[in-house]
């Protein structure tokens, strides 16, 4: 956790801050979803409460908090109440493991009559060396929340939704993991930080033992793994139960699917889980395929030198450098979140057999082929 009380405090506060980042982004995303859907469907959307309808978020939150909680008479209480909490855990744990910016190096400084430091703070909750395996492991547990909710509320619609959700989650997890195997082969590491570092500079690739540099393009993963990026992106929609893969809550057939029996605050927790999943997926997409927090063609040292010239104090400059890189990641995350929302209001829902055949007969073979082609390409590239 840290060597002294200051470091321990900062590390604990960091974890809570990232969790709160996830929770607090949800009302904004809900507002964006409602306004965005209205924009796409040529409606006005919520525009009465506050400027641009922004206070609507507060009104929604108050409504969610003050609704009377209830439980179905024949529901299974422990499972029914644990399911919404279980929906939060994977997103919160996964978002904490993703590096959101460059590490902050703090020089020794004086506070409360005593010298502190030097420290190096990571801009993430905790650094697990094998980040990719951890993220896959944690996100595969997300299915349990749907299963618990479906069975615990003792409702046939809920159960159908839950079983659909579990089957879909497992099916698309395979394609998603195989798409990431391509990334593992290209970068040869399981750590997020090393993957982001490897994507700095202009596009550089090896072919037949020679090195080629394309100066106009950044060295991003999508240029090495275009098919992998596409499969990963599509599979994250299924993992997050978003349209066109929202069969678990197909409101035309199953009322509201696995959360039919939920209302008020526990329903809100499911929403936070879903949007948290979207945020994690967007951050992962940015980290693996779009350079993570790096700024194209600008090294972190250059950003630090820029801030050192602007402000006085190495510590302030280090913090501002990290914030700049964090904004660089947030731009990408916001863009992908907008694509998530746009797709939801553009594409119709799959039929269940179409969904399964897409997962098993299209995405899985293509992801496998991607792995094989990547292996051949790497072998050719390093062969002289």
């Amino acid at each position: 956790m840290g060597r002294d009380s200051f470091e321990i405090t900062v590390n604990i506060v960091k974890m809570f801050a990232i969790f709160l980042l996830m929770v607090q982004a949800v009302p904004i995303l809900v507002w964006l979803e409602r306004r965005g859907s209205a924009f796409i469907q040529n409606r006005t959307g919520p525009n009465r409460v506050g400027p641009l309808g922004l206070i609507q978020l507060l009104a929604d939150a108050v409504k969610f908090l003050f609704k009377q909680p209830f439980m179905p008479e024949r529901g299974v209480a422990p499972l029914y109440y644990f399911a919404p909490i279980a929906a939060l855990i994977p997103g919160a744990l996964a978002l904490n493991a993703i590096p959101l910016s460059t590490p902050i190096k703090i020089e020794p400084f004086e506070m409360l009559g005593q010298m502190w430091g030097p420290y190096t703070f990571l801009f993430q909750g905790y650094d697990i060396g094998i980040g990719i395996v951890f993220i896959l492991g944690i996100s595969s547990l997300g299915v349990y929340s749907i299963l618990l909710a479906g069975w615990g509320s003792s409702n046939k619609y809920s159960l159908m939704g839950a079983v659909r959700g579990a089957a879909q989650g497992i099916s698309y997890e395979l394609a998603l993991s195989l798409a990431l195997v391509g990334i593992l082969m290209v970068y040869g590491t399981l750590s997020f930080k090393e993957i982001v570092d490897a994507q700095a500079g202009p596009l550089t690739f090896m072919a037949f033992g020679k090195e080629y540099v394309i100066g106009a393009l950044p060295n991003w993963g999508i240029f090495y793994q275009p098919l992998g990026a596409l499969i990963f992106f599509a599979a994250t929609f299924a993992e997050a139960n978003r349209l066109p893969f929202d069969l678990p809550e197909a409101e035309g057939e199953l009322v509201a699917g696995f959360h039919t029996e939920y209302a008020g605050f526990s329903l809100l927790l499911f929403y936070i889980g879903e949007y948290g999943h979207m945020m994690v997926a967007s951050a992962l997409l940015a980290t693996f395929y779009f350079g993570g927090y790096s700024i194209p063609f600008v090294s972190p040292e250059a950003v630090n030198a820029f801030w050192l010239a602007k402000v006085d104090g190495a510590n302030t400059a280090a913090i501002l450098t990290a914030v700049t890189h964090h904004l660089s990641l947030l731009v990408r995350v916001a863009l992908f979140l907008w694509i998530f929302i746009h797709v939801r209001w553009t594409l119709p829902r799959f039929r269940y057999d179409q969904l399964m055949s897409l997962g098993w007969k299209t995405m899985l073979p293509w992801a496998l082929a991607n792995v094989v082609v990547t292996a051949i390409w790497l072998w050719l590239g390093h062969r002289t």
Partner: protein
Amino acid sequence: MTADSLLFFILAAMTVGSALVVILASNPIFCSLALAMAMISVAGIFASLNAWFVAGVQLIVYAGAVMVLFVMVLMLFDLKDEVRAFSRGLVSGFFKIASVAVIGGVIAAAVWMSTETIFSTAPAAPTVNATVATKQLADLLFKKYLFSFEAMGALLLIIAIGAVALSRIEGGTHADK
């Protein structure tokens, strides 16, 4: 007591507790959920031993895929008859006593064989970086134990094909010969 040993005792208590629920609860849904909980706790124990990769794979494969399938299939069945058939009768009584004997033997053997390790004060092996440890594991799997690793893969493939073949027969496993 250090933080590491406190963590171990919490995780061990969770593992043993949920494993007990697996065999004591009569509702198969609770049994399988408790088994999933036991898998997650075992993954935590692996992680506390710095075996991060094994912990991650334990989560992905067992807790995330195998147990989800178990739970999903159990939820689809109405298991009242099976529960009754399994909780009464001479044959199941025999199996109960036999399994108690087996588990007693396993526990006795575990205690017998691990007394030396428990009371030894050998220094712990130096911890290595998670990525390096994963590479060492891969070296072992794909160089030293390559044949057994591939043989396991072939075995699993045969099982999968056999399951598909069985499910395609009209009537499944109860089909007329």
